[in-house]
């Protein structure tokens, strides 16, 4: 055995920890003697004690820069105990002989001490690279916010207050988005056109036109603008923005003369070609460029000369560090609910009802009731595999809001809500449901397949009253469809421009449904509000603030260190696209091979070369594991991995090798070790940064060295911290399985998905796998033992067939 790092004066120094006498099955004298062969050993009762840490500090100050290896508890535990020293620059290589050895094994001191020796040896010989790190480059201070609705505007204002330059890009002429244009909103029953203020009167809220936060000097509003193209990389994007002229300048005093003389109609219903919309106070009127005839009469009549037809479209390129998508959602188009008679008289949507309600309120004040019977149909085209499979979340509350309003205006009106499920989960929402019931709204569980019309054109709804299990025939005067929401127009195009993923419903996909609601699949591109799915205003406001902090954090991360990127060896790379397609972060590009670059013999002059962007690379190792030419070097090199496998398995009879990622699987295994959940000593664990680092070669090598079985443990299913490490590992395991089967030496192989809750079960899983791999049947004694551990008691299931529980649990196995 050779120790590349240890000889002569450069002998590594090992801090051997007895963990206050809790590692009873280790013979420390023998261990010290073994390690002492190639390293200097300092034994301590427990190094994390005040005295021990003082000694280490002294070593740091007086030491000669020798490699320090700590042999004791697990890396996670040690990192906590030595937190203060590490903050002062202590660099420790950690050999886990506690959770990873002593605590999980029985009383066979010889075998346990041997194993502890191996763990220390491999730590000394193949240290976890005291990694080169990469510092994040400076990121631009500018943020492009796409969408000037409540979400985008609020985030933009907050970002400006945090000191960023913000370009707020809004497709329409007016800010405010959908929320500002509708009437009252739930659950507060007031208008939706206010934003929180933070400056002048903190804690208050103000309408868009009164809110000075939007007028921050670093916040520039680009109306009638769209993002055309995006290039560059996270931290430095070049965003190309196209802006249509507004034609009406800010000299406008809102006298309305122009509208009275305009003869062309806008494509907006009921409006002239020069028109006004939601009043955000900054731009008052705009011109519909598609219908305007450019006759010029408005300009002639305008008393303040605020109309300027000489403006023309322009393109600008903005250099931005981050991009925020806040494009919102919009009501579903007709095709999703026309099966319910939409288009026929007597059938409207909730949006249309909202528009009618003001008029109805006027009628109510004159003592007139426009309709006697009204039926609302919930989930109209929503939660429907043939139309919109998703729940739009707002429709139930909108229906309740309208129903309550209707009953308030017209107590005699019969209002029925045909629902599938009423979803009123939100602070204060349930009260609305109760209020509606108290007001006399009828709730009928059941949704009709169609709306028919009788001879007089009156709607007829035949619907099963599910709770009563009988059919009802309703003959309302008006049917109101609670239709769903879809992503805003052009969301698909925008996501392509930004190269971000969409979910199956077409909304912007958030990076992580539990922890990262405001990030997208592309680094540096963020999302908030209804662009990622329909949301109520309270959620939109919360997300806007959250994303502002998130972006601020991202833009100010320059100088922070990340793990060193993997490297491509040009002399080996043949320019296939395996790595670039496998990389979950898009960090690998194929470039034309420079003349000067070395190349493998078979590569012609025009070959391509893979290049890894160090700023984007997360060092998961998936590319290195999948490279057919083994041309990529990860920070945990193949040599180190092969060396560790060899060192850990040498001299062990029927070793079982377990590769595990240091993230979720590492947490499960570490915590299981703290529970002292035992497994046999022949199980040899090898830690990886991500399970994606493992390649078929490593598995085959373990087999070649006599492994009786190999298991791979990664993060919970679908939750790989590096997105696709587990799927890569599964592919590699399948390849290894085929190779081993072909060579006539099949081996039990399994892939497990673990997370911290599996601390309770991973020990058993390892024991079971080990028993199967080494060829032990599940004996009644072993079975009873396991049942005891589970707490079911010995013999509770006496007579269960031997081997019944030995199938590897939920693991993805291809062993036999």
């Amino acid at each position: 055995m050779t120790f590349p790092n240890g000889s002569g004066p450069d002998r590594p120094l090992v801090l051997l920890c007895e963990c206050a006498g809790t590692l009873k099955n280790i013979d420390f004298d023998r261990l010290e003697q073994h390690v002492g062969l190639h390293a200097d050993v300092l034994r301590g009762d427990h190094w994390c004690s005040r005295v021990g840490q003082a000694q280490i500090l002294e070593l740091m100050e007086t030491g000669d820069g020798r490699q320090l290896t700590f042999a004791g508890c697990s890396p996670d535990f040690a990192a906590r105990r030595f937190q203060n020293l590490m903050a002062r620059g202590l660099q420790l290589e950690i050999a886990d002989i506690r959770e990873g050895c002593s605590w999980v094994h029985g009383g066979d001191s010889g075998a346990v001490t041997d194993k502890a020796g191996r763990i220390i040896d491999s730590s000394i010989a193949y240290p976890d690279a005291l990694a080169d790190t990469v510092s994040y480059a400076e990121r631009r201070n500018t943020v492009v916010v796409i969408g000037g609705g409540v979400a985008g505007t609020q985030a933009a204002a907050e970002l400006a207050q945090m000191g960023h330059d913000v370009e707020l890009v809004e497709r329409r002429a007016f800010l405010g988005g959908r929320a500002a244009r509708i009437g009252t909103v739930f659950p507060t029953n007031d208008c939706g056109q206010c934003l929180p203020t933070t400056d002048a009167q903190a804690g208050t809220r103000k309408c868009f036109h009164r809110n000075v936060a939007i007028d921050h000097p670093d916040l520039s509003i680009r109306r009638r603008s769209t993002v055309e193209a995006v290039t560059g990389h996270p931290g430095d994007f070049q965003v190309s923005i196209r802006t249509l002229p507004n034609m009406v300048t800010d000299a406008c005093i809102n006298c309305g003369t122009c509208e009275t003389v305009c003869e062309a109609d806008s494509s907006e219903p009921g409006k002239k070609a020069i028109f006004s919309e939601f009043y955000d106070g900054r731009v008052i009127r705009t011109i519909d460029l598609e219908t305007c005839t450019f006759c010029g009469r408005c300009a002639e009549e305008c008393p303040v000369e605020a109309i300027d037809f000489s403006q023309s479209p322009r393109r600008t390129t903005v250099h931005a560090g981050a991009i925020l998508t806040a494009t919102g959602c919009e009501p579903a188009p007709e095709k999703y609910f026309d099966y319910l008679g939409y288009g026929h008289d007597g059938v409207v949507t909730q949006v249309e009802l909202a528009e009618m309600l003001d008029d109805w309120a006027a009628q109510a004040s004159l003592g007139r009731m426009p309709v006697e019977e009204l039926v609302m149909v919930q989930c109209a085209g929503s939660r429907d595999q043939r139309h919109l499979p998703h729940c739009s979340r707002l429709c139930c509350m909108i229906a309740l809001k309208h129903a309550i309003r209707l009953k308030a205006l017209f107590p005699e009106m019969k209002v029925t809500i045909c629902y599938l499920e009423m979803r009123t989960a939100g602070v204060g929402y349930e009260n609305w449901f109760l209020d509606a019931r108290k007001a006399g709204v009828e709730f009928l569980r059941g949704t009709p397949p169609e709306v028919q019309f009788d001879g007089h054109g009156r709607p007829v709804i035949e619907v099963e009253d599910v709770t009563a299990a009988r059919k009802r025939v309703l003959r309302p005067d008006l049917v109101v469809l609670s239709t769903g929401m879809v992503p805003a127009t052009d969301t698909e195009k925008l996501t392509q421009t930004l190269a971000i993923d969409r979910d199956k419903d077409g909304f912007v996909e958030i990076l992580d449904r539990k922890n990262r609601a405001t990030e997208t699949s592309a680094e540096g591109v963020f999302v908030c509000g209804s662009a990622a799915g329909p949301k109520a205003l309270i959620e939109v406001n919360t997300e806007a603030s959250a994303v502002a902090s998130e972006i601020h954090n991202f833009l100010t991360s320059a100088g922070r260190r990340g793990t060193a990127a993997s490297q491509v060896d040009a002399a080996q790379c043949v320019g296939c696209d395996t790595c670039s397609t496998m990389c979950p972060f898009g960090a690998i590009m194929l470039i034309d091979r420079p003349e000067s670059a070395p190349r493998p013999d078979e590569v012609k002059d025009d070959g391509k070369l893979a290049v890894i962007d160090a700023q984007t690379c997360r060092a998961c190792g998936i590319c290195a594991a999948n490279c057919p030419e083994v041309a990529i070097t990860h920070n945990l090199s193949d040599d180190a991995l092969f060396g560790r496998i060899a060192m850990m398995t040498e001299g062990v009879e029927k070793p079982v090798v377990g590769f595990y990622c240091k993230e979720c699987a590492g947490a499960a295994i570490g915590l299981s070790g703290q529970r002292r959940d035992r497994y046999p000593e022949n199980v040899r664990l090898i830690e990886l940064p991500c399970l994606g680092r493992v390649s078929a070669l490593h598995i085959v090598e373990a087999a070649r060295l006599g492994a009786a079985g190999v298991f791979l443990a990664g993060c919970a299913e679908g939750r790989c911290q590096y997105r696709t490490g587990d799927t890569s590992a599964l592919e590699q395991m399948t390849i290894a399985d085929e190779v081993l089967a072909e060579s006539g030496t099949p081996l039990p192989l399994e892939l497990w998905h673990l997370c911290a809750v599996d601390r309770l079960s991973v020990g058993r899983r390892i024991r079971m796998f080990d028993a199967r791999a080494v060829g032990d049947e599940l004996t009644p004694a072993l079975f009873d033992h396991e049942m005891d551990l589970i707490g079911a008691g010995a013999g509770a299931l006496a007579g269960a067939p031997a081997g019944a529980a030995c199938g590897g649990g939920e693991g993805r196995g291809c062993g036999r």
Partner: protein
Amino acid sequence: MAVAADTAYPKAVVDEFKRLAEECNICYQCGTCTSSCPSGRELYRGPRRLVRLILSGEIEAVLKSDDLWRCTECGTCTEVCRMDIDVASLLSRLRKLEHEYGGTIRCPERTAADVAAARLRKQPRIDNLRFGVAMMVEGHFPKDKVGAAESGMKIVKQMLPLGGKRAAGEAVPAARGTTTLPFYAGCALPQDHELHALVHEVAAGFGVRLDEAADAGCCGHPSRGTVDSLFSSAERVYTACPACDASLDETGVEAVPLWNALTERAARASGMVLRASTGSFVPYVGCLADRDAALAALGVAAQQAGVTMEVDYPTLHNGCCGALGGMYRGATKASTRLLEFAVEKHAPVVTTCVLCRDNLRSAARELKLDVPIRFWPEYFRAVEYAPEERTDD
């Protein structure tokens, strides 16, 4: 899926229930299927409830449910299901299952008679008696339940002409013919004397003499005993009604649609030519028949007669004439589309089911659509052997 393993049922049934549950476990119970069911306007509680019972593992309740047998397989429930569950096929598999494992094909009328008898037994009140009488006048009374309803029976028999026996003299056996086939007329055909005679006449045209039992009665219940005795020597029985086919098959008698046999015969016999009364027609085979076979028979006939069968009707295999248990319940979406299609094609509807003919005629009247609806003998005849030419348009 929490399907309770009911040991009272064979494993195959329990397993099939598990499979069915897996297919519909995403059901939201929104009730759209029941809302859409054309059979559902009156006593039918709909597919939604059956799906719920499948999911809760109530095998007994599902298989004993009469609702199962009120389904006409029109397929509307499948069409409207927001979760893309093939509801109609679930129900059809359930019927098959019950049929395979000792159950019987049930008929809603029979159930009604059962209900009447049970009610009479419990509460011999005048309204129940009247209900029972009404059912019996219609010819629906279960032989095995007469004990309880005996008093009602007496009244009924006094009320019925000929003491409850149906006069059979109206049927006209064909005078000449080369083959004699045992024929079972069922209940519907003899009610239309003219049509009944026409069937015999057209069959004769094909060289077939129909040997008809004098008192066949209704296939479903009262005469079940007599069916066996009537035809015990015969290999098979020929019928002109898909409901009879199904019921007879159930009692172990092999029943063959007469029309299929006739067209097959015409195809085999050289020199036999079919003639049709118009140049094109819209076929309709209803819900009960073996649809593919019935449609194929119409297709063969159309070919032989040189007429066009308009088959591009969108829901040809999805039809419901609007009947439930033989009772017309109003035009359905399916029958409306069918009739509108026929109007558009200027073609009569030709059906292989005598019940469908009457129901579609009612629907056409209701919809004020001028569409001739023909039972097959009213449209096709074999000319070479035909005793006389006859047009009915």
